[in-house]
C-alpha cells in the first residue's frame, strides 16, 4: 500500500507538495482576490447606529453562530465538497495531454476556513507530484485519484453523520424528551 495514503489528516498534511518537473502554471483567472480576515472582537456596547448592519459584522455573527452549533464540521463539509470538485476535475482530465493534477491540502485548508478566509481552499490547492511522469505531460494517475476520491467521499459522509448527531442532540434538547 502507498504510504502516502495512510494515516490521519494531520500526517497527510506533512507530505510535502512539490511542483513536477515542467509545471503548467495555473491560469491567472484561477486566482481569487484575497479578502481581509474578518475582525473578531467587536463588543456590542461599541456598536452605534448603522454599524450593526455592516456586512463584516453580520458575517462574523453568522460564522460564530455556525461554530457554536456545528463546531468544525460545517467548515470541514465545505472543504470536503470543494476537494471532491478538484478530484473530479482530475478524473475528468485523465486523458488530456499536459493537464497537471491538483489536490487540496485538507488540513491547511480547514485551518484557513476556520479563521474565516474565503480563499482557504484555493490558497491550499497544490499540484500533485506524480510517481511517474507520462510522455504527454499529464500527471493524473487514476489509481491515486480514485483512492483519494473514495477516501474523500467517506470522510464527507463521516462529517455528515457528525452533523446529524449534533442536530439530533439539539432537537432532543429542544423537545425536552
Amino acid at each position: 500500500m502507498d504510504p502516502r495514503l495512510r494515516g490521519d489528516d494531520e500526517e497527510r498534511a506533512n507530505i510535502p507538495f512539490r511542483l513536477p518537473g515542467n509545471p503548467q502554471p495555473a491560469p491567472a483567472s484561477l486566482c481569487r482576490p484575497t479578502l481581509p480576515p474578518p475582525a473578531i472582537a467587536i463588543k456590542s456596547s461599541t456598536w452605534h447606529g448603522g454599524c450593526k448592519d455592516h456586512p463584516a459584522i453580520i458575517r462574523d455573527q453568522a460564522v460564530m453562530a455556525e461554530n457554536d452549533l456545528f463546531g468544525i464540521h460545517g467548515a470541514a463539509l465545505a472543504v470536503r465538497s470543494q476537494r471532491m470538485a478538484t478530484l473530479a476535475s482530475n478524473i475528468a482530465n485523465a486523458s488530456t495531454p499536459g493537464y497537471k493534477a491538483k489536490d487540496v491540502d485538507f488540513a491547511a485548508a480547514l485551518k484557513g476556513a476556520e479563521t474565516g478566509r474565503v480563499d482557504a481552499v484555493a490558497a491550499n490547492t497544490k499540484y500533485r507530484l506524480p510517481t511517474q511522469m507520462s510522455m504527454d505531460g499529464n500527471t493524473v494517475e487514476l489509481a491515486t485519484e480514485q483512492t483519494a476520491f473514495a477516501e474523500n467521499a467517506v470522510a464527507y459522509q463521516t462529517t455528515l453523520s457528525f452533523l446529524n448527531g449534533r442536530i439530533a442532540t439539539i432537537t432532543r434538547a429542544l423537545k425536552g424528551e
Partner: protein
Amino acid sequence: MADNPMNIFQVAGRAMSAQLVRMNTTASNLANAGGVATTPDAAYRSIKPVFRTQFDAASGMATVNVERVVTAGEEPTKRYDPGNPLADQDGNVWENAVDETRELVDMLESARTYQNNVEVMQTAKSLIVDTLKLGR
C-alpha cells in the same frame, strides 16, 4: 455555460461526452480498417479527437472539451492487386492505414475513463442526497 459557475455534474458530464467523441472516432477508424481506394488521397486516414482542458475561474474546476477532430497516423500503403476493381492502371490499390491494435487499446481506455466519470457522478449524487437529508 460560462455564465453559471460549473458544478461537479457538468465536469463529469462533459468529460463523458469527450470520451464518447473519442469512442466514435475509434469506431469510425475500425469500421474503415482494411478498406482500399484507387488513389492515396481517396484512402481513409484515421481520425483522432484533440482534448483540451477548460478551466472555470469561478469554481476553480476544470473540465475537458474536444477542441477539434484531426486526421492522424500513417500514410495509406500501396499494394499491387490488379484483380481488384478499384485498382488504378498500374494495378495498384491504396490501403487505409488504420492501426487496429492501437484503436482497440484506445477504445478500452476511453471506456474505462467513461466509467470513472459515471462513478464520480454517482458518488457526488448520493453525497448530495445525503446532505439534503441532513437533520431528518
